[in-house]
């Protein structure tokens, strides 16, 4: 089955068209996993590429991601429980004491667009809440964000709490936010540092590729 038309609607961010194309593929008897992989995620890979080449802007990329999500919603009932394969699961949140979430939300949307499953814990997330979410959700990656230099220590506190609870080795930790640096990431023992939403996606892909 050829998913070119579907991919194109995703890349253009044509939501109605994409949903129609997805339905058409399902009606034609295509495998939902194939639609997801070769239609939707393949389109988002193109979007990611165009974005990094500078020929696509963030609002266009986000529209493509939203379009893709609408198609995924259509596919979901077609999957047997647990058989849909996503690129991986990521827990995200802005750390304790910090109420800023524009950056974190943007990262979450981009990761979702790239095929990851996101569990967003919101803002002002306490270390214990991160620990509990890691225990409950078993994600591959934990993403933490901070905008204020005064809340950066919460990142370290969260990593300590994960160690205490015996979960540190089960998850890779990625951090970001305006005052955060790669050096700080090293100091507190985070695995990855992403200076912006685009690099968060490639870092996340890198984590999974490294296994």
């Amino acid at each position: 089955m050829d998913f070119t038309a579907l991919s194109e609607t995703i890349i253009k961010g044509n939501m109605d068209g994409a949903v129609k194309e997805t339905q058409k593929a399902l009606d034609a008897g295509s495998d939902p996993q194939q639609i997801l992989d070769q239609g939707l995620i393949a389109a988002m890979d193109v979007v990611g590429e165009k974005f990094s080449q500078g020929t696509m802007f963030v609002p266009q990329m986000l529209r493509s991601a939203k379009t893709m999500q609408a198609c995924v919603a259509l596919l979901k009932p077609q999957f047997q429980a647990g058989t849909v394969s996503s690129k991986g699961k990521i827990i995200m949140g802005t750390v304790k004491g910090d109420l800023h979430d524009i950056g974190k939300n943007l990262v979450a949307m981009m990761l979702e667009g790239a095929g990851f499953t996101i569990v967003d814990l919101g803002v002002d997330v306490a270390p214990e809440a991160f620990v509990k979410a890691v225990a409950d959700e078993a994600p591959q990656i934990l993403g933490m964000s901070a905008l204020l230099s005064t809340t950066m220590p919460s990142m370290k506190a969260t990593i300590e709490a994960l160690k205490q609870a015996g979960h540190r080795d089960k998850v890779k930790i990625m951090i970001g936010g305006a005052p955060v640096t790669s050096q700080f990431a090293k100091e507190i023992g985070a695995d990855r540092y992403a200076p912006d939403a685009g690099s968060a996606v490639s870092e996340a892909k890198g984590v999974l590729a490294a296994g």
Partner: protein
Amino acid sequence: MHSLPIPTFQPRLKVLSREQALAIHTAALEILEKTGIKMEHEGARAMLVDAGARPFEGDWIRIPAYMAEEALKTAPRQIALYDQNGKKAMALADENFYFGTGSDTTFTLDLESGERRQCVLADTGRFARLIDGLDNMSFAMSMSNPQDVPKIEFIYVYAFAEMVKNTNKPIVFIADRRQDMAKIHEIACLVAGGEEALRRKPFLLNYSEAISPLRFPAHVVDRLIFCAEKEIPICLPSGSNAGGGAPVTLAGAMALGIAENLMGLIIHQMTRKGAPFLFGPNVSVLDMKSTVVSYGCPEWSLTQAALADMRDEIYGLPIWSFAGATDSKAVDAQAGAEAMLSIVTAMLSRCNLIHDVGYLEYGNTSSLEMVTIADELIAAALHLTKGIPVNDETLALEALDRVKGAGSRGIFLTDDHTFDHFQEALFLPELMDRSRYDAWMAEGGKDLYRRANDKARELLASHRLDPEMAPELAKEIDQLLGKL
């Protein structure tokens, strides 16, 4: 027969008509009345509801327009900032403008190596001292998030103490919550000679932020109330940046930012009528590729010029603004071009308190060289803004007669009129190089960045405060820091 002197027209940028200004103001009031604000501070919410605001859905409230109009009436139209010697230094009102640096950069360009590295407390001191020594800079901000402070939760207290020790000019400071703000206030009282003296002659102004869209976190409102009570001048923009926290269209972003500012002003004036509040949202744009908040874009210059028009048409309160910054990572052509655009337009639109001078990398890196260069760009812009005085002396017909009378050897360069007037008639640059090529090469063929580096080093090595801080006062401040 006498005639009146011809007044000098001073170039002025206007970007909004009265109709446009009123329409944005009306939209801001509609946001308060119809959309509402998420007021997370319980005390402030109760106070507002008592006064006529209507609560809905948890901590949201809707605020009738008359509450904003009342607050606008009681807020003072002039904010005077003093230097640390008690001399009036900044009369923030009407068309007066003052330039200064910015806060909270993670990195700085090292003066020795030129490398971008993380800021330390000594950088905070260096920037404050440089500001003290530069003629066109009126106030200091930290230009750093020093990573070497003993206790990170008091980072702003250490930064404030470092600034106080290194400049006598007014200081615009940041705080995190009521507790560290109280410590900063304590230090300021030590410097001013008591709380009453500080209240009468404040040398500091707080910069705080609500969160666009529509969100007022409790600890931000705590700071706002603290400043109102102590009459520490404050501004409270909300980061209503186009395409991020606010609509991508500038009118909508301004309306939202102004609504949020009015919300802050209402709480502030209800807490203490007549306490000084510097008006104005920051309305820049989110870059549509990198999602950084741009510091070199033309839009921010446009929105603050528009705000100056709204000040003149409606609010009458002095405004907060920015200039002299760039998104460039280096002190290069982009940096110079972007810095000059915002400096000239901020001056031409008569913004009042103009901060962020010397920022590189969308406010993530500070540069002593950039501040030094901007200082001269401000002087050049000032020359432009002063206009062309027209009178008998400047029309210089007599000088022309003299030069004509001197025959073929006549040149204005040798005439007394030139000797008498050239220093105020012309802009005489120091850093901007106009030397002949051979002379420039003989001086090492240095570009602007290198020349600014030389000047910054020289100033930091030679400049002394007038006076330097008394050792007893420095000791008191250090004792206070030791007890944090």
